[in-house]
């Protein structure tokens, strides 16, 4: 009987609410790190130059001077190498070898010479200003290294202090010497 009191059930509707309440959009963000390295390196673009110095002895002038070393034959010349180093710690060093008579290899008689000593200087041109390194052939071993840092330029090799050990006359023959310029990426 109690049911007689009830009114006709009307259509009822209700909404099932999704869990969490209001619907929101969610994004993702990401980062990718790209890495690479460049190793410290040096390279000679022009790595070899041969200087033909010609006749080394004085051939004219005072008789007392004829046959002795004509210094200008070496000191007036330069050789141009070219290279680069890509790192701030790069250095340049020079080791020069005396010019020796390769035709006459015995001990030079009194008054005569078969060896010419000199100082070689290499100069590079980084942006911050010229950097030089030198070596004298009088002492064995190379000269100390100079820091060039990053550079890409000509490397000019020049000569000074050309002299024979005792100032005597040069023995006739073929003469040969060399200068090694070393570029080191990092010490």
């Amino acid at each position: 009987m109690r049911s007689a009191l009830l009114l006709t059930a009307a259509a009822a509707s209700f909404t099932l609410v999704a869990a969490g309440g209001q619907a929101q959009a969610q994004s993702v963000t990401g980062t990718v790190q790209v890495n690479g390295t460049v190793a410290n390196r040096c390279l000679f673009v022009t790595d070899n130059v041969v200087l033909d110095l010609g006749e080394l002895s004085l051939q004219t002038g005072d008789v007392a001077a004829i046959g002795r070393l004509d210094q200008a034959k070496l000191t007036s010349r330069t050789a141009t190498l070219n290279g680069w180093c890509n790192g701030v710690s790069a250095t340049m060093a020079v080791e020069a070898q005396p010019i020796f008579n390769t035709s006459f290899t015995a001990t030079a008689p009194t008054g005569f010479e078969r060896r010419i000593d000199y100082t070689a200087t290499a100069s590079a041109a980084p942006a911050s200003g010229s950097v030089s390194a030198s070596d004298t052939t009088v002492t064995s071993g190379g000269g100390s290294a100079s820091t060039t840092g990053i550079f890409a330029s000509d490397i000019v090799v020049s000569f000074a202090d050309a002299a024979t050990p005792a100032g005597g006359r040069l023995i006739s023959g073929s003469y040969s010497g060399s200068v090694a310029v070393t570029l080191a990426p990092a010490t």
Partner: protein
Amino acid sequence: MNKTILIGAAALLGLAIAPAAMAQTVTGTVNVTGSVAAKCVVITGGSGGTFSGSIPLGELAQADGTLSTTLSGSTNASPGGSTQFRVNCNSAAPKVTLSSTRLALTPSASAPTGYTGVIDYTAALDAALANSTTQTVSYVTAAALPAATVQNLSTSLANSAGNLTVKAYALNTASGALLMAGNYASTISITIEPS
């Protein structure tokens, strides 16, 4: 006076009882609704809302000191490097935002004449789509960094592993520039929104 009252009561009674005597079916409908929020979520390479990774390119220079021709000649098909992620997005056209910084010497240093410490390149996001195609979203770095690339994917992301591949390729510098020695780094930034 008594007669009057009795008639009233009988009428009331009749009204109350009449409906209860009939049998009736009742029907009702309940509408069930729900919604799924549009969302993207990281599955591999991170979780939740962020992912991260790296692309190591190794030595960038070749023996003559310039940018490796392998890296400068790299393409989307054969990139310098890549890394993969999986992101699930439930929307029909997720929106991708992509940008990158230049690959630069870190810490930076001014470059002497003939040298560079900055490399431009193309950063790309290859999205595997649900229709078995791949859509590439790319960004090319430059001295004046362009605005980020914003692109909607043409359809949903594929529901598969590694559906996002980030690539670096087409590295380039000024012609003949020597690369300064050191470590180079850049950051590719990616945002994927449901819509």
